[in-house]
């Protein structure tokens, strides 16, 4: 008797399988958690893969220091509920230690996160890192493997990727290398929201419509904050907005939206005519290849 299997069931099962493969084949995995919707889904998938036992890995947040306060609050609450261990790797510390320098005139710390992440991987000797990246986000990612090898400098070599067949993942690495693993590679933004709704997962409040002081820069609505003062010609408006992604406050744009619950968001995503990165990430628009370049350097 053939039975009903929804696309979410199939995607979920695939992701659980991937997480268990990592737990079984690596010594020291870690799960990256940004507080955003994709990593929220990862945490639920980890519960599905490993409960009633604890996760066989800690959770790590790469903290840019430019956080939405709502997201930090959510992060701590969620981790406490799960009873799992949280590591916070701080970009501010990398700056203070002189590992990275902020570019004059560029408030975004997005690119600086790479160094903080690689340093933390080295410090804790992680050999595998779960990330919430999806292939539908961006064209360089469309070709990235689920098990994506990084050399000892954390770099990705798109031309030398290992073939990936069936559900057989090759977890062999050499000392110093590590594996980035993307369990939700095959999910779209829509799948993520449908899953969050189905599982009734909590997300940070900034995903829902709220009033906020924003100003226009590079075609995006940016939130005013201590990290990002508006310029003299940039008028501040109070608008009803929400966020489609959660990132560094200085380069994550809000969208004008009345969506107040999951159902509204799903309708909005269904009707959206602009990709989430195109709408809300200033750093991706710079060049046709900017994501590929950052990924080669070791970015998420």
């Amino acid at each position, binding site marked *: 008797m053939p039975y009903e299997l929804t*696309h979410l*069931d199939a995607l979920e099962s695939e992701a659980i399988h991937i997480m268990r493969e990592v737990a079984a084949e690596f010594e020291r995995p870690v799960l990256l958690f940004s507080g955003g919707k994709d990593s929220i889904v990862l945490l639920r998938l980890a519960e599905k893969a490993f409960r009633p036992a604890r996760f066989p890995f800690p959770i790590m947040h790469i903290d840019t220091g430019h956080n939405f306060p709502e997201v930090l609050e959510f992060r701590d609450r969620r981790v406490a509920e799960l009873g799992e261990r949280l590591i916070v790797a701080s970009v501010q510390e990398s700056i203070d230690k002189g590992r990275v320098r902020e570019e004059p005139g560029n408030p975004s710390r997005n690119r600086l996160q790479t160094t903080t992440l690689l340093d933390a991987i080295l410090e804790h000797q992680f050999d595998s890192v779960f990330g919430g990246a999806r292939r539908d986000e961006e064209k360089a990612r469309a070709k990235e493997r689920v098990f994506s090898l990084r050399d000892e400098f954390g770099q990705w070599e798109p031309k030398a990727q290992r073939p990936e*067949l069936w*559900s057989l993942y090759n977890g*062999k690495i050499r000392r110093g290398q590590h594996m980035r693993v993307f369990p939700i590679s095959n999910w779209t933004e829509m799948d993520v929201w449908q899953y969050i709704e189905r599982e009734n997962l909590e997300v940070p409040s900034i995903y829902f419509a709220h009033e906020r002081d924003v100003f226009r820069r590079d075609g995006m609505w940016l939130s005013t904050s201590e990290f990002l003062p508006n310029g003299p010609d940039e008028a501040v408006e109070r608008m009803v907005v929400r966020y489609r992604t959660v990132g560094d406050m200085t380069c994550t744009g809000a969208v004008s939206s009345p969506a107040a619950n999951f159902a509204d968001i799903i309708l909005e995503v269904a009707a959206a005519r602009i990709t989430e990165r*195109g709408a809300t990430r200033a750093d991706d628009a710079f060049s046709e290849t900017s994501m590929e370049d950052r990924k080669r350097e070791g970015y998420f």
Partner: protein
Amino acid sequence: MDLLRFSTAGSVDDGKSTLIGRLLFDSKGIFEDQYAAIEKTSRRRGYTQVDLALLTDGLRAEREQGITIDVAYRYFATPRRKFIIADTPGHVQYTRNMVTGSSTADLAIVLVDARKGVLEQSRRHAFIASLLGIPHLVVAINKMDLVAYSEEVYERIQTEFAEWAAKLDVHDIQFIPISALHGDNVVTRSISMPWYQGPSLLYHLEHVYIASDRNLIDARFPVQWVIRPQTDEHHDYRGYAGQIAAGVFRKGDEVTVLPSGRRTRIKRIETFDGEVETAGPPLSVSILLEDELDISRGDMICRPHNQPTVATELDAMVCWMADAPLREGGRYLLKHTTRTVKAVVEDLRYRIDVNSLHREQDATELGLNAIGRVLLRTSGPLLLDEYDLSRTTGGFILIDETTLDTVGAGMVLQAGPPQQTVEDPGTTESAGEAGDHTERAAA
């Protein structure tokens, strides 16, 4: 809504990128900013219309060379289904990418240029689809606008292809005449081809019946991970976690654990959301057993009267994926389900010319992109099924012990000591000399 995974293969200029671009565009799988980007590029290159093919450009190297060199995954959904496309390049030098993209596909689209008819490459694509066990094939006869939407041309290609494909192990072939450029029969039925009574391509993708492709007979559960909470609350808890490869498991079932052969019963089947009475592929679950047995990753739970073969020898088709060739005596790591062992190539029986499908008996190696039949011997027992029975328990990868790269993909023809009886479909005998085109008598 369910999920259909399909692969596309076409040779350069068959119109594969245009077709995918159109499927994404017409099903609204393309966003405005993506469209704006390709519009800009089209204008910069001096094209008169927006080139939808640009949507499927991926990495920089590919943009520079203007070709697709890797498998790219793309996503779209209609109200009926979610689709995952494994977009693979068609040239013979990328056979391994095609094999990779085909390994998880439910359906393959083979593109044929109506002006050129069934070429070597279309046959190669269909052969790979059948080798990788894709249950459904669509032959999309493209560029019908350039042959005046001629029914005769379509019929001729269909007949020729169908005759040839009868040799392959493909049970469901749908022929669809299309124009990817103009959209005929891609999403909606074409008014230019009233003689064609079949479905549009998208309609077919939405409706092709895949639920019965899952193997619900041969219960196979490779143990992936053992859940042992070691807390007071769950003191003696031992959950065998994994993804069901095939067959249906029920609470209370009598089961055998391999390779030990020990028998017990299923006490419970659990998921994070609670206990379930039955579970089938491809669900990820935890199985708890009545008796405490010593079970670990790499073991397999199955039914007492329906077991895979426990063997250290196997006869398999292998697609080679590395520059350094496979040779007799070569040693590799072999990963099959959740078990990794060492393997040695005992015999290279023949290589298949992927264009003519002739068997080259005197071949001494498999180079990059070559496909051949080998006998392997392993350091420890594997729990093997024929690939035809189950892709999950019949497929394996080979890993180079020094580079640690994935160098080969294998499909089990037969487990156990070598026998001569197993035939692989489609290929013909030949001593391998050039020009030998003897057809094998119909099987």
